[in-house]
């Protein structure tokens, strides 16, 4: 059972019903012995009456005399009682007519017992001593059985009602109990990086749930201050670094604009401007990473069709590949939509493409494979470059790690793949490198969750 409320209800209903069933069982035993005791008393009363009719001289009666004295009484009570009187040594005997000559079953060593007789049914039998006679009086136990059957029926109905009622009560009760916890869950769910100041409402009580809510609120306080620190650092660092950068750039450009610089100096100023742009890029990327690690980047996740997205991207990719003298092939399989924000995934793809183009030999082939399958959108970019040994492949996603840079005079910051990994993990996906299918080359693959194609069968 998945929810606490269902579990609570189940155990509540089970324990209530079982308790009631045990009580009913005990009641059954009590009631039955009570009713049987009543029968014993009836039998005893009949015995007393018989004794009276037999008179004080009963010890000397023969069968006939005995018959004369008690036949009438026994006949008048024959609906209720079966009577047998015996003398253990002589054959003096009396049997009520309703026995029709049969013997009342005897259980040796017991004076009161239940027995069953053919043609009559269940009986309650009591043996009395009226020395020298043994008097056995039995009465039908049907009334007891009927009563017990009724009792069982009523109990069963009550148990069923109890089960239904306790499920209802259990559900209501668990809802009531879990209401503060539900409130906590909803609030905690709502609190994200964009509304970290919201708190779980805490009732003015001192129970386990409010304690939990207070603890969670304290945790959110700590989280919020950590977030704020990162945001503030990122803003301040940004401001402190970029204002001087602006000034340097503006002055450098002014020097160029005003002219009069010897060509060698003009070239030096241009290099400065280019390096400034690079520095600015590194600052932006590092600040992006620190925000991404703090989950302070907001990503607008929406379902998009990867096929259409790639169509646009491929235009640019082909232009870039053509320009660098490499070949570019893209394929896409599967229908459906993946959940992502286009500009971020585009940035990842451009980064993978740039790396692949840089690593490729002249006229080398860079291939992009995209596939929607099994709830994932998987895209891999593969080159025909020298590839990387396994230990280096693991490390290319780390900050400032660069390999094979001498090949094409790579001017990257060494943060591109780190950023790509951040972006993909913000999309709930993963990115990894593997050797390409051919003899050499590197393949970088990312996967992000997709939605199943709704129209794959219909169309």
């Amino acid at each position, binding site marked *: 059972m998945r929810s606490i409320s269902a579990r609570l209800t189940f155990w509540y209903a089970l324990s209530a019903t079982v308790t009631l069933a045990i009580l009913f069982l005990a009641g059954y035993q009590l009631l039955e012995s009570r009713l049987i005791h009543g029968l014993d008393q009836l039998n005893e009363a009949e015995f007393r009456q018989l004794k009276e009719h037999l008179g004080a001289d009963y010890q000397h009666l023969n069968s006939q005399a005995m018959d004369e004295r008690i036949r009438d009484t026994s006949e008048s009570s024959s609906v209720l009682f079966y009577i047998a009187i015996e003398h253990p040594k002589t054959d003096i005997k009396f049997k009520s007519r309703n026995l029709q000559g049969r013997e009342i079953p005897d259980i040796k060593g017991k004076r009161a017992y239940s027995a069953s007789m053919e043609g009559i049914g269940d009986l309650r039998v009591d043996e009395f001593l009226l020395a020298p006679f043994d008097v056995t009086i039995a009465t039908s136990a049907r009334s007891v059985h009927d009563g017990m059957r009724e009792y069982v029926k009523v109990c069963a109905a009550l148990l069923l009602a109890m089960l239904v009622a306790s499920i209802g009560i259990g559900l209501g009760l668990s809802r009531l109990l879990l209401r503060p916890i539900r409130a906590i869950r909803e609030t905690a769910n709502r609190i994200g990086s964009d509304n970290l100041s919201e708190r779980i409402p805490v009732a003015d009580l001192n129970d386990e749930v409010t304690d939990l809510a207070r603890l969670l609120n304290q945790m959110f306080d700590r989280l919020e201050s950590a977030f704020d620190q990162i945001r503030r650092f990122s803003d301040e660092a940004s401001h402190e670094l970029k204002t001087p950068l602006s*000034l340097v750039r503006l002055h450098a450009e002014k020097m160029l604009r005003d002219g009069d610089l010897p060509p060698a100096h003009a070239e030096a100023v*241009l290099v400065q401007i280019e390096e400034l742009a690079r520095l600015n890029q590194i600052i932006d990327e590092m600040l992006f990473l620190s925000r991404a690690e703090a989950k302070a980047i907001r990503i607008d996740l929406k379902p998009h069709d990867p096929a259409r997205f790639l169509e646009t991207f491929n235009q640019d990719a082909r232009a*870039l590949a053509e320009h660098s003298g490499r070949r570019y092939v893209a394929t896409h399989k599967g229908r459906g939509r993946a959940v992502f924000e286009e500009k971020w995934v585009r940035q990842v793809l*451009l980064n993978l493409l*740039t790396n692949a183009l840089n690593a490729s030999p002249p006229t080398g082939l860079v291939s992009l494979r995209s596939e929607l399958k099994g709830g994932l959108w998987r895209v891999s970019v593969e080159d025909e470059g020298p590839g990387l040994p396994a230990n280096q492949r693991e490390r290319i996603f780390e900050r400032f790690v660069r390999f094979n840079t001498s090949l094409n005079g790579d001017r990257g910051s060494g943060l591109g793949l780190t950023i790509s990994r951040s972006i993909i993990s913000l999309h709930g996906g993963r990115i990894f490198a593997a050797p390409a299918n051919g003899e050499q080359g590197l393949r970088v693959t990312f996967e992000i969750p997709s939605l199943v194609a709704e129209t794959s069968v219909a169309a």
Partner: protein
Amino acid sequence: MKVLIVEDEMRLGQFLRQGLSEHAHTANWVQTCRGANDALVETKYDLIVLDLSLPDGDGIELVREWRASGFNEPVLILSARDSLEDRIKGLDVGADDYLPKPFSLEELLARMRALLRRQSVTKQTVLERNGVKLDLLGHTVHVNGEAVDLTGREYALLEIFMQNAGRVLTRTLISEKIWSSHYEVDTNLLDVYMSRLRAKLEGALGKPVFKTVRGIGYQFL
């Protein structure tokens, strides 16, 4: 054009005031939110260049106040904070454009011109210069009367240049207009499209159409 610069950093403010004056603008410079409000009460400005982090308040709040009180002159935000979040927030409260630091003076001037042009739009449907003719309605391009076949991106690029003929356009500005992000600045995608466009136009025309301004951008001659 009369411009109010709101920038707390002393040297940057001075530089901007001087730079804008050299380009025939009348520039006034203040360092605080208060100073900005006082200046606006005093005179009417055509445009406000506003830094976001000011010592006595937040630039975004300032724009919000201005817009709420019915002040409608164009506002160009200048900010070190280059996260997309800030950009959207600034434009949401009613700023008209946003320029991330570090920027180039050319870029600032180009954006200021664009903002003022937005005020007084005279829509042309055919742009023509140096023998290149661009029909905005028919989406066609002719060089010396001969039709030239351009891809979608090349056409968009040419349109931006012809709308701003004779001016240096920075890489960030072009990139933002075409890809609505400036990440492409870091790849050489823009240079790739520029060289294709150049090959097509200059091949047909037999003379240079664009000038590369190193470290800054391109200019349609």
